[in-house]
């Protein structure tokens, strides 16, 4: 029996490995490496250890902006968790009800915004919410809702929440579909047995369906977390890279953009930008690890 080197494995793995390596792993590693360098006025780079990290976390002009962006990002994520995912669960539960008329139409309509470009979404909502061209004060007054007329995207107190809700509106379809698929995979005989035992639909949902889709909710949480901490386009499309008013909509993505590319007369720094990117990577890594250790391991999976 001869042990030949399994060349076919290399052959089949190579395309994926090469593409992943060149476009994902290498840039990531190089970003981490770049964060340990500083750049002189003439563009030469030299190794400087943790200088960039001290600058970013130690100097108040940088650290205030960083913590502000991180905190805004956490709020952005929490709004998604509190609004997007419960609504997605509710919609999925309703859609999976037996005998619901037009379920397919609803499903398509709710999923549709996800397919649109974020820039278009930003533009449409900016127009709808525009005090000048959007839903007018008169129309709201007719409905008795004139207290709702405000520059929602322009006020420091409401801009971030408004943007988060726009993002929820757009992306609610994705968790809905995931949960819906998972609800459909619950075998009918379990539900029927529960019905025969006299359980109400309410009780069936809380005691049978929900525990069975919990692993999917965990997946949705992780997807939301990673997506939100990499978010950028919506804020950039609606508020620009300066993320006004007064940086109240600045999240890590926009903060990274300004640091890396510069903005107007602020000159970009590739090395400091790489440091921000590294910190973003660490935040996401820590978040995902915390989730796996604290929650994922304890989830019970049922054999169905």
């Amino acid at each position, binding site marked *: 029996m001869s042990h030949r080197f399994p060349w076919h494995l290399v052959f089949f793995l190579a395309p994926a490995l090469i593409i992943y390596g060149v476009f994902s792993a290498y*840039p990531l590693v190089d970003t981490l490496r770049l964060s340990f360098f500083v750049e002189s006025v003439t563009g030469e780079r030299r190794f400087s250890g943790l200088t960039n990290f001290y600058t970013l976390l130690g100097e108040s002009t940088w650290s205030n902006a960083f913590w502000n962006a991180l905190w805004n990002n956490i709020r952005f994520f929490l709004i998604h968790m509190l609004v997007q995912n419960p609504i997605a669960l509710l919609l999925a539960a309703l859609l999976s009800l037996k005998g619901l008329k037009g379920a397919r139409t609803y499903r398509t309509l709710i999923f549709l915004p996800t397919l649109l470009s974020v820039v278009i979404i930003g533009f449409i909502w900016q127009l709808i919410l525009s005090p000048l061209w959007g839903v007018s004060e008169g129309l709201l007054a007719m409905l008795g809702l004139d207290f709702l007329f405000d520059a929602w995207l322009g006020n420091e107190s409401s801009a971030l929440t408004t943007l988060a809700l726009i993002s929820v509106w757009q992306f609610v379809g994705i968790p809905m579909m995931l949960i819906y698929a998972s609800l459909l995979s619950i075998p009918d005989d379990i539900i029927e047995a529960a019905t025969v035992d006299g359980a109400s639909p309410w009780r069936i949902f809380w005691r049978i369906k929900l525990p069975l889709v919990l692993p999917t909710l965990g997946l949705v949480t992780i997807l939301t977390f990673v997506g939100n901490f990499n978010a950028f386009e919506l804020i950039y499309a609606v508020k620009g890279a300066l993320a006004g008013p007064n940086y109240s909509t600045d999240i890590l993505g926009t903060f990274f953009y300004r640091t890396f590319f*510069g903005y*107007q007369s602020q000159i970009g720094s590739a090395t400091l930008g790489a440091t921000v990117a590294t910190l973003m990577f660490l935040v996401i890594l820590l978040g995902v690890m915390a989730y796996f250790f604290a929650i994922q391991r304890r989830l019970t999976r049922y054999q169905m």
Partner: protein
Amino acid sequence: MTFSLPRLLALGLTASLGSTALAQSLTIESWRVDDRALWESALIPAFNRSHPDIEIRFRPTSPTEYDSSINARLQAGTAGDLITCRPFDVSLNLHQQGHLASLDSLDGLANYQDFAKRAWSTDDGQTTFCMPMASVIHGFLYNKEIFAELGLTPPHSREQFFQVLDTIKNNSRVTPLALGSNDQWEANQIVFTNIGANYWQGEQGRQALLNGEARFTDDAFVAVWAEMARWGDYMGRGYQSQTYGDSQNLFALGRAAIYPTGSWDIAYFNDQADFEFGAFRPPVEQPSDQCYISDHTDIGIGINAHSPNQEAARTFLNWVAGSEFAELFTNRVTGFFSLSSHEVDVTDPVAAEMIGWRNDCESTIRLNAQVMNRGTPNMEQELWVVSSQVLNGTISAEAAAARIQQGFAQWYEPQSD
């Protein structure tokens, strides 16, 4: 759906594969997307009449992306031969990195006065690295029909200015001021440095800040923000989320009477507005006071030091310094005024009115354009942020001044006590 480094790198790769250079063919990098048609239909053909052997391509990038993209492409060696230059530090920085060639031996430079060259020279004034192209003048446009209907005349003093605003607010349905604070830059570039020059007496106040004799917390600067705090009452409802484009539309549709702006907007309204409009300059305290205007050196053009077509590029710049370019640029790019010493007759009435202010008033550039934007925190951004907050009424004039001064003193030696 996500924004990631790998994707950016992939984008950069495709961008860098897209440019190749032919001998005697020049590519102009610019942020003036609006001027593309003009370059292609008027300026380049005019140049080719005298220099048929040099082919020119105009390749603009959108203004907010220009600085970062040109920086990246110069570093990667993929930028065009001619670089449109922002004034002062952004271009100075490119020169120091060796990306913008020195133009000192170029004959055309003799056609410019020192004030025009200052925006694109080293701090000691010895080396110039961009050919000055044009400046913009800040002021106010007004709808002549609305003014006539309400029996108003353009104001000279601040008191008259607020009387005019009150009359429009109380006696008509139009918005007095077409201005929003969503995009933030207007709050600084077309409000603070526009009306402010009269408060800090133009160059005098700007130099005093630079040499450490004045502070942003002095009355001359705080008073500007104090006036801006009063403007909120005259801006449209929900102006906090009104963009620059919204303001342009509001004025172009005749739904606002006064539009604080710069001369670059004249061309847009010549095109879009079907009413007659005029311009008035920033109001002064007493009608007899000396007036100051923000006459900002805005556009220059330099040579990519690594371009293989140095000779052709220098030939082109010498043409830019000539009278033909001055005439064409001033009158075809309405609202941008040539900086060379050639006499040019401005044909557009509003542009002519604005350039005429140079005869009565003293010119100054935007307050923070020189040196002050060099540090961290970046003063340009800080001024956008605090000035728009003052317009929003969320911070006081004093707090705005304190924040700017504190950031300035943090890195600028003459300002730290």
